[in-house]
């Protein structure tokens, strides 16, 4: 999956799309942290409700979310599936040595719900904002220039570097790498040497390319022009949405702290 695919729906016309990027970043970021702070089961339903409402408001198709949740979802399930079997004393169901425990089941529901909600908000943020706009908003919020430049350049060359590696790996396979039968649990020095060569060559090619890119960037004035990032002014709709989302985040924080 690439960022380009995440940006398929950034040109939409929903309230989430027209939300001033800087305010959207701050508000959704705060809400993600409020969700991470939830430790009580009764708050799970409101959390799922708020997330579903925000997703519906973004008018992103459900397939966009389901596609992206699949892989990390499987990963988290592998991590937390052990909880209902090992955590807690109240046994709900038992079959031989395997016992399903209430406390573990509750912990698992909490972790999975938090995970799904935080991830959904992240995808809403990325699905409704172009990456470069997001980076510009981060710059205006104090992200150092060096980090912003590095992020942008990494993004620019990430997929080309991935293509380069894939071509190199294909040539390795065509020359027989990985076709020899090896004994189980044995590591061959020759395999390791070839992989070192592969990674080393990838680093050297990237390094050489960076030298050419830097020369081209200098010729175009890189490092001499200091321009503060221009930010669009916030409209009434954006301010209202920001106030609502921040109020919800504060409500979650206070309920969690007071009860």
């Amino acid at each position, binding site marked *: 999956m690439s*960022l380009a695919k995440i940006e398929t729906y950034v040109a939409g016309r929903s309230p989430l799309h027209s939300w001033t990027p800087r305010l959207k970043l701050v508000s959704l970021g705060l809400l993600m942290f409020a969700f991470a702070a939830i*430790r009580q089961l009764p708050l799970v339903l409101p959390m799922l409700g708020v997330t579903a409402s925000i997703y519906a408001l973004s008018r992103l198709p459900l397939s966009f979310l389901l596609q992206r949740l699949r892989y990390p979802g499987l990963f988290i399930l592998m991590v937390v599936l052990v909880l209902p079997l090992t955590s807690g004393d109240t046994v709900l169901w038992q079959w031989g040595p395997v016992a399903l425990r209430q406390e573990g089941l509750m912990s698992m529901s909490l972790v999975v719900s938090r995970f799904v909600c935080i991830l959904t908000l992240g995808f809403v943020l990325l699905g409704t904002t172009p990456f470069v706009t997001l980076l510009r908003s981060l710059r205006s919020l104090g992200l150092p220039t*060096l980090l912003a430049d590095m992020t942008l350049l990494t993004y620019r060359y990430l997929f080309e570097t991935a293509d380069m590696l894939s071509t190199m790996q294909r040539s390795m396979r065509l020359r027989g790498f990985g076709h020899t039968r090896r004994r189980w649990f044995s590591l061959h020095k020759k*395999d*390791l040497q070839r992989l070192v060569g592969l990674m080393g060559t990838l680093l050297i*090619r990237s*390094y050489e390319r960076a030298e050419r890119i830097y020369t081209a960037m200098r010729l175009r004035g890189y*490092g001499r022009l200091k321009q503060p990032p221009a930010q669009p002014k916030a409209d009434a709709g954006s301010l209202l949405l920001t106030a609502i989302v921040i109020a919800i985040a504060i409500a979650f924080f206070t309920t969690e702290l007071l009860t």
Partner: protein
Amino acid sequence: MHIPDGIVPAQVCAAGYGLTGLLTWYSLRQINKQGDPSANVPKAALLTAAFFVASSIYIPIPPSSVHLLLNGLLGVVLGYFAFPAILIGLFFQALIVGHGGLTTLGVNAAMMGLPALLAYRIFRLRRLLNSKSTEPFIIGLFAFLGGALGLAIAALIFTAVVIATVPAEFNAQAEQAAIATLTISHIPLAILEGVFTAMLVLFLQRVRPELLEGNS
């Protein structure tokens, strides 16, 4: 070894962001001391992209395969640029592959970035040996230590975070067994990471020594 969203409490996420902020500030301060920092930005960015992509390379150990963390190697090759590189790499990993998360970006960056900076300092320690510091054996040895300790320290921090955030009602015996397994399984991985780092640094030293010059 990525902590996903929703696993650790908000306080841990906030502390992670705090520590990452501090380490970023420290790294940028050191980078700015090295003359014109913008001259190294394209190099660091393209190497970040290369490391990000290279993290998908698996070492075949039948019937399975092992994937390397590369944080020690990042420290050895990129020096102080390693921390911003790891932060950016993890940011893209959370966005593109769904590994890690946005709320846990700070925790993950500190967990992998701090050992990377230590690996860089360890690799530089060989300069204390003066004339011997350019001998292949010494370069390989210090690169091995940087790579192996990079992974080992990251694994220790990961274990500490897991212990600190595991639910209170979790079975203590199962917890101890899981932690012991986690720790023991990382010993051969740390050795493999160290060997790979040493071999790669020696390869770079032979083929393109200027790639390591900035950090030697």
